[in-house]
C-alpha cells in the first residue's frame, strides 16, 4: 500500500472544526462528524480520540443534584429509562464515583516524541512562521503590505516568494535543493519518519496540532466565498509547507544528520478504523445528563399539560405579529400579548421563506440571507438614495506607524484621551460598531421584481429579482406553514431580528441564525412588499387565502440587543392604517421596555430595583459600549423548541428558553407542512443548541476561551496573542450563563403522523434517533403526551409534583438573577 496525502486528508476533513470566517458565524453542531452515531457514544468517542471534555464532570452533576439543580424524581426517571431491569442501587457507585482521571487522547501522541525523545519543541519553531505565512496569505485587510499571492495556491506562492527573495524562508540547503524540483509529501515524510507505516498517523497529528487553522483552511477550501477576497488554498498545500518548515527547523537545530522519528521505539499508529469503531456510552454520564435534562423538560411538559388552551378572543384581532422562531423573541411575544390581548403573534424561521443573496448598495460583495445549507438562486440589489453617505471614517483603525504616527501622537493623541473618556462615561454609537439597522437603510429601495436580468456572480448566474409566480409561491407557503390562513388583522407585522454590538469580533454570532448570521431585515421587507401587492393578493385569493384590502403588511427589524424596532416602508400606508399602526407601535414599545426589564435580570451590572426606563437605557448602553463583552446573552439557556399553535404556550412563562414555531396541526392532516417545519429545526435550532452545549462543557477546546485576550487575525478569525492558533466555537462570555442541555422539541401533532414523517425523512429522523435532540409529541385533540424513544412513541407521564406560577404583573419585576422555573402565568383578577 502506498501513501496518498489526498486520501489521508479526506479522512481527516470531517473531524476538523467547521467554522467559517467571522462575518459568517453560523451555529452548527460542533461534533458534526459523529452525528450519525448515538449521542452518548459520540461523547465517549470524541473524548478518547481527541481528548475533549464532552460533558460536565461527575462532580458538577453531583453538586447540581445536591443543590437541587437535578431533582430526585428526574434522577429516578433517568435511571428507570436507562436500565429496564436494573435496580437503582446498582448505579449508586457509578453515579457517586470521584472525579475520574482523564485518559490520554489518541491524537498527538506520536508527535510528542519530538519533545520527549529529541527535547525539541518542533511546534514552536514551525508554527509561528507557518501561522504568519497563512494569516498573511489569507489576510482580508489588516496588513498594509500584502502577501504576493499567485493564482497557483499557497504552496506555489510560498515557493515563489522563497525563490525570489534573497533572505530565504527555508534556511536548510537540503530544502533548497529539494524544492528546486518537483516533490511530494512522501519525499518529505520519508526524511522525517523514514518508515511508511507512520505517514498517515503523522499527518493526523500534524493537522490536529493546530485544529483552528486546519479547520479554517478546510472551510475556505470548500467554500471560498467565506472570504470577501477569495484566495486559493488547500489543506494539502498547508501540509506540505508545514512539513518543509519542520525539516528546515530540524536541520537548523540538529544539522542535517538526525535520526528520523520512525526510528524511535514505542510509536503508536493511528488506524482509520479506530475512528469508525463504536464506543460504549458511559453509564453514569448518560444517567446524570438525562436527569439534568429531564429536570428541565418535565417542568415545561407539566406546564403544557396543565394549562387550558386560551380560546380565541371574542373581539377581533387588532394586529398579527410574525417573528423569528428565535428564543430571544419568545419573551417579546409574551410581553406584547400580555399588554394587548387583541394582538396575536406567530413564529417562523427568520428568513421568512425567502432565500436570497443580497447586494448592499455600497458593496461589491454578495451576502447570503437564508439558512446555511440552502443555496439561493435569486439576488436582490439595494439602491440607495445618493444623498445619504455613511460616515465611515475612524481614525483609530489607522496604523499610525512612522510619520503619521509622530504627527498624530503629538496632536490627535491628546484628543483620543478625550475620546476615551467620552466613550467610557457616555457610551454612544460608533462608526465601527455593528448596528442591526445599518444592515438595511430605511430609505433605500430594493430591486425585487424580475426584469429579465441576471447577475453573474463568480461561479454561477443569479436571477435578479423574483417573478410574480415565484413571489406567490413563497408568500403562500410562508402563510400556510404558520397556519395563518384566515382572519387577517388590519395590520400584519413581519418582524426580523438582528443584534448590535461594539468592539465585538463575534458580532455575527448574535444575528439571525436562519439568515446565516445576519439581520433578516431584507427578507422581512421583501415578504411585506410581496404580500402588499395586488397581483399576489389576487393569486392568494384564488388559492383560498382571503386577505381583505384593509389589511396591510408592515416589515420591521427587532434589535435584540437594544430592544428597539424599526419599521420599513411606512410611507405607503393609508392615513387610517397609520393611525392604527401608531396605536400598535405604542404597545410594542411598551412591550420592548418590559422585555428589556426581563432581560436585565440576568445582568449583574443592572440593579434589580431600577425603574423600567432605566433598565431599558442600561440595556441600550450595552450595545454601544466599548468595554462590554456581553452586549446581550444571545441564545444562552436555550433548551426547548415548541412547534404548535401559540394558544398552548401563551400562558406559560418560558424564561427566554424556547424556540417557538407556529404550526396549525388541525389543518395539516398529512403532515406535509410539519415536514417542512421539521427540516430546518435540526440544522438551525439543533445547531445553535449543540454549539452552546459543547462550547459550554469544554470552553477551552470546543469553545474560544475568554474573549478578553482575543486578537483579530486577518479579519476572519481570532487568536490569543499573535502566535496562537485560531480559536473556534463560542467565547466564554457567551456561554457562562448557559446550562448544557440538549434541545427538547415539542410537536403538537398526532404521534402517528410524526412517526410517518420520521420514517420518510431519514435526515430528520437521525437527529432524534441518535438522541442529539429529544422529541415529545402532544396530541392536539386529546392532549396526551408521547415521548420519542428508539422503539417509537411511548406515552409520557410527568413526574414534577409542584407547579410553579407567576403573576402576570410580576413579569417585569424580578428579585432574583438565578434561572427561573417554567411557570404558568396567572392573571391578577
Amino acid at each position, binding site marked *: 500500500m502506498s501513501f496518498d496525502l489526498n486520501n489521508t486528508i479526506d479522512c481527516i476533513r470531517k473531524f476538523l472544526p467547521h467554522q467559517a470566517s467571522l462575518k459568517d458565524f453560523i451555529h452548527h453542531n460542533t461534533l458534526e462528524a459523529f452525528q450519525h452515531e448515538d449521542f452518548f457514544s459520540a461523547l465517549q468517542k470524541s473524548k478518547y480520540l481527541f481528548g475533549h471534555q464532552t460533558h460536565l464532570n461527575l462532580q458538577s452533576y453531583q453538586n447540581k443534584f445536591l443543590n437541587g439543580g437535578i431533582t430526585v424524581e428526574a434522577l429516578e426517571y433517568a435511571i428507570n429509562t436507562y436500565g429496564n431491569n436494573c435496580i437503582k442501587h446498582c448505579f449508586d457507585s457509578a453515579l457517586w464515583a470521584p472525579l475520574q482521571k482523564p485518559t490520554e487522547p489518541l491524537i498527538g501522541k506520536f508527535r510528542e516524541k519530538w519533545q520527549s525523545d529529541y527535547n525539541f519543541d518542533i511546534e514552536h519553531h514551525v508554527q509561528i512562521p507557518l501561522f504568519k505565512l497563512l494569516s498573511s496569505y489569507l489576510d*482580508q485587510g489588516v496588513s498594509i503590505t500584502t502577501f*504576493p499571492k499567485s493564482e497557483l495556491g499557497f504552496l506555489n506562492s510560498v515557493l515563489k516568494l522563497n525563490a525570489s527573495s534573497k533572505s530565504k524562508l527555508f534556511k536548510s540547503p537540503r530544502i533548497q535543493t529539494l524544492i528546486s524540483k518537483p516533490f511530494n509529501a512522501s519525499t518529505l515524510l520519508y526524511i522525517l519518519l523514514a518508515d511508511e507505516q507512520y505517514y498517515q498517523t503523522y499527518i493526523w497529528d500534524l493537522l490536529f496540532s493546530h485544529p483552528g487553522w486546519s479547520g479554517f483552511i478546510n472551510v475556505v477550501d470548500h467554500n471560498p466565498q467565506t472570504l470577501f477576497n477569495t484566495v486559493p488554498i488547500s489543506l494539502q498545500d498547508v501540509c506540505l509547507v508545514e512539513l518543509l518548515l519542520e525539516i528546515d527547523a530540524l536541520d537548523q537545530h540538529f544539522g542535517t544528520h538526525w535520526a528520523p522519528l520512525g526510528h524511535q521505539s514505542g510509536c503508536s499508529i493511528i488506524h482509520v478504523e479506530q475512528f469508525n469503531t463504536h464506543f460504549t456510552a458511559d453509564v453514569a454520564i448518560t444517567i446524570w445528563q438525562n436527569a439534568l435534562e429531564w429536570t428541565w423538560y418535565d417542568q415545561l411538559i407539566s406546564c403544557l399539560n396543565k394549562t387550558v388552551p386560551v380560546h380565541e378572543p371574542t373581539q377581533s384581532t387588532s394586529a398579527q405579529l410574525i417573528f423569528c422562531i428565535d428564543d430571544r423573541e419568545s419573551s417579546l411575544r409574551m410581553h406584547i400579548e400580555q399588554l394587548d390581548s387583541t394582538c396575536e403573534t406567530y413564529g417562523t424561521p427568520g428568513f421568512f421563506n425567502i432565500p436570497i443573496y443580497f447586494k448592499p448598495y455600497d458593496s461589491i460583495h454578495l451576502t447570503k440571507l437564508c439558512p446555511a445549507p440552502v443555496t439561493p438562486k435569486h439576488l436582490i440589489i439595494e439602491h440607495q438614495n445618493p444623498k445619504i453617505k455613511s460616515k465611515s471614517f475612524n481614525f483609530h483603525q489607522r496604523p499610525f506607524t512612522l510619520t503619521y504616527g509622530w504627527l498624530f501622537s*503629538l496632536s490627535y493623541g491628546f484628543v483620543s484621551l478625550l475620546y476615551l473618556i467620552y466613550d*467610557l462615561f457616555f457610551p454612544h454609537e460608533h462608526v465601527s460598531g*455593528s448596528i442591526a439597522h445599518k444592515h438595511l437603510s430605511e430609505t433605500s429601495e430594493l430591486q425585487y421584481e424580475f426584469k429579465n436580468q441576471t447577475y453573474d456572480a463568480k461561479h454561477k448566474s443569479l436571477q435578479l429579482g423574483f417573478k410574480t409566480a415565484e413571489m406567490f409561491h413563497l408568500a403562500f407557503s410562508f402563510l400556510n406553514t404558520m397556519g395563518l390562513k384566515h382572519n387577517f388583522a388590519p395590520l400584519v407585522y413581519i418582524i426580523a431580528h438582528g443584534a448590535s454590538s461594539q468592539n465585538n469580533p463575534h458580532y455575527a454570532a448574535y444575528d439571525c441564525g436562519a439568515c446565516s448570521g445576519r439581520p433578516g431585515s431584507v427578507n422581512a421587507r421583501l415578504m411585506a412588499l410581496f404580500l402588499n401587492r395586488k397581483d399576489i393578493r389576487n393569486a392568494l385569493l384564488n388559492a383560498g387565502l382571503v386577505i381583505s384590502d384593509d389589511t396591510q403588511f408592515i416589515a420591521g427589524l427587532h434589535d435584540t440587543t437594544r430592544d428597539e424596532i424599526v419599521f420599513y416602508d411606512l410611507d405607503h400606508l393609508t392615513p387610517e392604517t397609520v393611525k392604527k399602526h401608531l396605536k400598535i407601535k405604542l404597545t410594542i414599545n411598551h412591550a420592548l421596555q418590559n422585555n428589556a426589564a426581563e432581560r436585565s435580570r440576568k445582568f449583574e451590572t443592572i440593579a434589580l430595583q431600577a425603574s423600567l426606563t432605566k433598565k431599558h437605557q442600561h440595556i441600550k448602553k450595552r450595545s454601544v459600549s466599548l468595554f462590554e463583552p456581553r452586549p446581550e446573552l444571545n441564545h444562552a439557556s436555550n433548551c426547548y423548541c415548541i412547534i404548535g399553535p401559540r394558544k398552548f404556550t401563551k400562558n406559560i412563562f418560558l424564561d427566554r428558553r424556547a424556540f417557538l414555531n407556529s404550526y396549525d396541526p388541525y389543518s395539516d392532516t398529512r403532515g406535509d407542512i410539519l415536514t417542512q417545519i421539521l427540516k430546518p429545526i435540526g440544522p438551525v435550532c439543533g445547531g445553535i443548541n449543540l454549539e452552546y452545549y459543547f462550547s459550554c462543557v469544554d470552553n477551552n477546546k470546543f469553545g474560544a476561551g475568554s474573549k478578553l485576550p482575543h486578537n*483579530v487575525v486577518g479579519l476572519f478569525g481570532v487568536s490569543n*496573542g499573535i502566535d496562537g492558533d485560531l480559536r473556534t466555537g463560542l467565547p466564554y462570555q457567551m456561554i457562562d450563563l448557559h446550562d448544557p442541555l440538549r434541545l427538547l422539541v415539542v410537536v403538537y401533532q398526532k404521534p402517528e403522523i410524526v412517526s410517518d414523517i420520521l420514517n420518510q425523512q431519514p435526515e430528520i429522523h437521525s437527529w432524534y434517533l441518535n438522541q442529539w435532540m429529544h422529541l415529545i409529541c402532544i396530541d392536539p385533540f386529546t392532549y396526551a403526551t408521547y415521548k420519542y424513544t428508539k422503539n417509537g412513541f411511548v406515552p409520557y407521564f410527568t413526574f414534577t409534583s409542584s407547579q410553579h406560577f407567576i403573576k402576570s404583573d410580576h413579569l417585569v419585576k424580578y428579585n432574583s438573577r438565578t434561572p427561573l422555573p417554567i411557570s404558568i402565568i396567572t392573571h391578577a383578577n
Partner: protein
Amino acid sequence: MQTEILNLLIYSVFGLPLILFLILAIFKNASELIIYRISIWGYGIQILLITALSIYEFGYFNANLFFKSLTLYKSEDYEFYIAFFINPSCILFLSTGTLLSLLITVFSKYYLHREQGFNRFFTHIHLFYLGFVIICISGNLETLFIGWEIIGICSFLLIAFYRNRFLPVHNALKVFTIYRLGDIGLLLSMWGIHHAWHSNVNFQNIDVLPHNIYTNSILVQFILLMLLLATMAKSALYPFTTWLPRAMEGPTPSSAISYGALSVHMGIFLLIKTYAIWQHSVLFKIILCAIGIITAVVSTLISNTQSTIKGRIAYATAAQVGLMCIELSFGWITLTIWHICGHAFLRTYQLLQSASIVSLKNQQFKFQKQSFQIANSKLSAFKATVYTLCLKEFNMDLVQHFYFWKPLKSIGRYLKINTWTIFFIRITPILCIGFLNRYAPVYISDMIKDYIPIVLGVFGLGLILKAFSATTNLKLIMTLIFSNHVFASLAISNNEKLQMHELLYYWIGIVLGFGICMYVLNYILQTHKQLNITRYNGLVYFFPTSSLFFLLGCLMLSGFPICTTFIGEDLIFSHIKPNQVLLVLILSLSFILDGLALIRIYARIFLGPVAIHQYLNAYKRS
C-alpha cells in the same frame, strides 16, 4: 512648612498605590464591586494628590524638587537611600499614567466582569502602577531600580494572566528574559556610576558632576553602554523588538496600559532622567540615534506586514519609540516627553478598540489591493526580500536564540552535575580554596590570588548554567542556585574585604527565599512525586497558595526589592573594582541567569497547561 507639606504629598503619592495594592492582595475574596470602588477611590485621590503636587511644582518652585528619604544602608563610602525627585517631565508622565490607570480601571470593571482572576488582575495593575509611580518620582537610580524591578515582575504576571495556557506563559518568560537583561544593564550602570564619581549620584546632583572624566574613560563608556542596554531591553528597541507583540497575551486593557502606554516608554524615560550623564557624549548620541532610526524603519516595515491587529499596533508602537530615541539624541527632552504622553493615549485607545476592526472593515466592503506581485525584476526581488525579512521579523528572535541562549544552554547541558554526590565532589575543593584564601591566606602568590575571585565567579556561573538548563532533580537545582550565591559572595570576599553586616544584608533574603522554596517544593513533591519539569505542570490550579509563596521565595532569592538581598546585591557589586570588568560581567551574568533559572522553575512547576489533567487545558498552541 511648605517643604513638609510637599514631603507628605510625595509620600502619599507613593504610599497610596502601595496601600491599594496591599488591600487587594490581603482581601482576596472581595466582591467585584468592592474591588472596583476601592480602586476608583484610590485613583481619584491619587489624581487630586498629583494635581496638588503639580500646583506646587509649577506654582511655587517652578524647578526641580528633590528630597532624600529613608536611608537603608550607610557606610563611610557608600550610602543606599530612597530619594524623590520631581520635575515637570516627571509630573507630566505621572499624570498620563495615573489618568490612564483610572480609565483602565473603569474599562476593566465591565470588561473583566465574571472573569476568573478579577481580583488578581486589579492587584497586578495596582502593583504595576506602584512601580510606575516609583520610577516617575525616583530621586536616584537605586530608587528607580525598585520601580523598574516591580514593573518587570508585574509584566511577567500580567502576560501570564491566563496562566494555564502554554503561549502566555512561554511569552511571559520570554519578556521576562529580555527585561532581566535590562535590569542588569541598570545594575551595572549603577555600579559604574558609583565608581566613576565616588559619590552618591542622584538626579539632583547629576547635573553638577565633574565632566572631566568624559575624556576617554572606559568606565564612563561602560556606564553609557549599560544604560543603553537597559533602555533597549525595556523599550523594545532593535534587536529586542520581538518581545513587544508577544506581550499582548493578557486581557486587552492590561496590554493597552503596559505595552501600549507605560511599560514600553520606561526605557526612554530612564534616558530622560539620566540625561545629564550622557548629554556630553557624542558617541552615545550617535549610537542612540542610529538605534532609533533602525528601530523606527524596521518596525514600520514589519508593522505593515502584520496580519493581526495587535501585532500591527505593537510594531507601530515600537516605531514611535524609535523616533523618540532620535528626538532624545538631539536633546529635545520636552518634545520627547510630550510625544510619550500623546503616544500613550493614542495607543491605549487604539488597543482598547482593536476588536472593532472586524465590523468596521467588513462594512466597508472593499477589495484589498495587492501591494506587489513577484516578477523577474531586481525591484521585485528586493521587495520580496524585504517582505520575507518582515515576515520573519528580521530574524531577531533567531539570532538571540542561536547566538545567546542556545550556547548558554548547551554549556549547561555539557556540565555533568546530575547527582548530589557529583555536586558535592565538584564544589568542595573550589569552596575550600575560596575559604582558605579568604581566611588563611598563605602560600599563594599574588599573581594567582588576583584570579581566585574570577575562578570562583566562573564556577558559580557554571552552577547557575547547569541550573538554567537542568530538568531533573528539582531540589538539586535549587541547591545549585543557592550555592551560586555562596560562590558569588566568596568571590567578592576574596576580592575585597567584606564587612560581616554587608554579607548579612545579602544573605537574609537568600536564606529566607531558599527556605521557603525548599519547603514548598517538599510539600508539592509529597503529592506529586513524578514532577517533571521538561514540560509545564500548571500546578497553580491545585496549589494557588503554595504557588504564591514559591514565587515570593524565588523573588527573594533573585534579589527582588522585597527584602535586603536587593541592597546586598548592590553592596556586593560596590566591592568590585572599576578595572575588574571581567569579574563584574561574570557576576552579572550569573545574576541574570539566577533570576531566569528561578522564574523558569516557577513557571515550569506552577504555570502552563495542567499536565496531569488535560481536560482543563486549551490546545497547546491556542
